[in-house]
């Protein structure tokens, strides 16, 4: 018999704040985390816009021999996970005695890779790269670091699904628990913010160039959007079987009731309508709910022309005449990419628990597709019990999660 999958802890480190309380306040107040970075511009970026994240100083928390293997996104993930474990009441003794899993979304580690190769080229001596290089450069750097730091003994796996990585991590974690393979899985997503990580992305003209108005640059669904703004950080969600959570006396925050996924099988960067539509339908079917029970949708919408339009079309096709509020929190955070699917579950959870929906900033004029949706440009107070979160990625990888309040 399938097990119920619940959320017992969350933690976040983003451009909106360094913990859940700060992020909740920023969401409520419609704060933008976007800045103009002149250094990017001076170094040849088409757009100097980025989310602003401070790399955490962990010298007092982790030893030199632990930190030497951690690139920036692993540090973000560490901070987010410490908060999530604390909120879930998972202490080191419990973790040591149980097989806690780890599924974390990450799809690049550019800066360490570049730095290692630079040293190799300049010195022509691989020893000079040092011991941290290999472990910082690998795509699985976040999971290898977190599993060793926290002593995790369950599944230990990085999920690389482009901008749907974090969402797939939660979805796959829920399947492992639902089918009895794990009782508790730490899920999440992490995203590096350094210029090396997004210079090639900037090179395909994907970023907004509204540089004179950083806070207005990320404008999902708005008629005058001109591209996304890169962001990052990390978000951690503790998934657990209902039985395990009850047995531990853990706080039960919500239940993951649906996970849908699909592939587009078409263009490498241009999303379509059918792929997301199938992902949405699969998630809703698995959740076993009436579509009208969905009270809020956190859209993937990144502020790109084609992506936002196609998602609006897919949502309209699935929702019909049901018009729950649809927003993209990327209007505040920029596109948190590998992290986004996890962070947006947390943003939505904070709104569900707080009884509000944060504004879709900069939604001033709809286009013909976004006009089909109910998109609030101002914060609204609303009680809702079920939300849906979409994440889509390059190569046509789609993930949709349905979560119910408990």
């Amino acid at each position, binding site marked *: 018999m399938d097990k119920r999958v619940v959320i017992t802890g969350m933690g976040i480190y983003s451009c909106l704040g360094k913990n859940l309380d700060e992020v909740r306040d920023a969401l409520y107040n419609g704060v933008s985390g976007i800045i103009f970075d002149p250094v990017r511009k001076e170094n040849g970026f088409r757009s100097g816009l980025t989310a602003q994240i401070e790399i955490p100083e962990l*010298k007092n928390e982790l030893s*030199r*021999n632990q930190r*030497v293997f951690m690139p920036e996104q692993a540090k973000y993930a560490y901070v987010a996970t410490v908060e999530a474990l604390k909120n879930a009441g998972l202490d080191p003794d419990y973790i040591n005695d149980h097989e806690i899993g780890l599924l974390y979304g990450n799809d690049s580690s550019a800066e360490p890779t570049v730095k290692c190769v630079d040293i190799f080229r300049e010195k022509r*001596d691989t*020893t*000079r*790269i*040092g*011991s941290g290089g290999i472990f910082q450069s690998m795509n699985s750097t976040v999971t290898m670091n977190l599993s060793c730091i926290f002593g995790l003994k369950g599944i230990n796996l990085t999920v690389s699904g482009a901008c749907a990585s974090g969402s797939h991590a939660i979805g796959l974690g829920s399947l492992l628990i639902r089918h009895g393979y794990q009782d508790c899985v730490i899920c999440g997503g992490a995203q590096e913010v350094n210029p090396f990580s997004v210079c090639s992305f900037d090179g395909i003209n994907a970023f907004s160039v509204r540089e004179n108005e950083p806070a207005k640059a990320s404008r999902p669904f708005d008629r005058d959007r001109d591209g996304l703004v890169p962001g990052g950080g990390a978000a951690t969600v503790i998934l657990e079987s209902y039985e395990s959570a009850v047995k531990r006396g853990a706080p039960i925050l919500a239940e993951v009731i649906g996970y849908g996924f699909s592939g587009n099988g078409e263009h490498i960067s241009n999303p379509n309508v059918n792929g997301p539509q199938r992902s949405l339908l699969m998630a809703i079917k698995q959740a076993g709910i009436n579509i009208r029970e969905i009270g809020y949708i956190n859209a993937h919408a990144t502020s790109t022309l084609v992506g936002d339009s196609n998602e609006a079309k897919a949502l309209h096709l699935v929702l019909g005449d049901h018009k729950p509020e649809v927003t993209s929190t990327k209007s505040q955070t920029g596109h948190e990419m590998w992290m986004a699917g996890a962070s947006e579950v947390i943003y939505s959870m904070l709104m569900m628990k707080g009884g509000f929906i944060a504004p879709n900033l900069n939604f001033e004029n709809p286009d013909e597709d976004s006009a089909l949706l109910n998109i609030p440009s101002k914060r609204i107070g609303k009680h809702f019990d079920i939300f849906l979160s979409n994440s889509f990625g390059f190569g046509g990888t789609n993930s949709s999660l349905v979560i119910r309040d408990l």
Partner: protein
Amino acid sequence: MTKQEIIERTNVALAEEFEKEPSLFNPQENLREALELDSLALVDLVALLESEFGYKIKGPEIIEVKTFGDLYEFLLKKQSDEGHLAS
């Protein structure tokens, strides 16, 4: 470079890289224990010394180095053998 200069330069570099108090460094002290050098951190020690003094150091050479005193003598001998120091 005198032996004292080598000692001082080495200690400053080791203290910064391995985040240890230089007061812990004395010639009789076990290098691996004092700096918490596992097999990976040992790679960083070699990289650090190569960067600091400009010598290519081979794995077997550093394995023979047990104490801080051994390390100072090793670097002094390297200077003597190779006849120069990197800046």
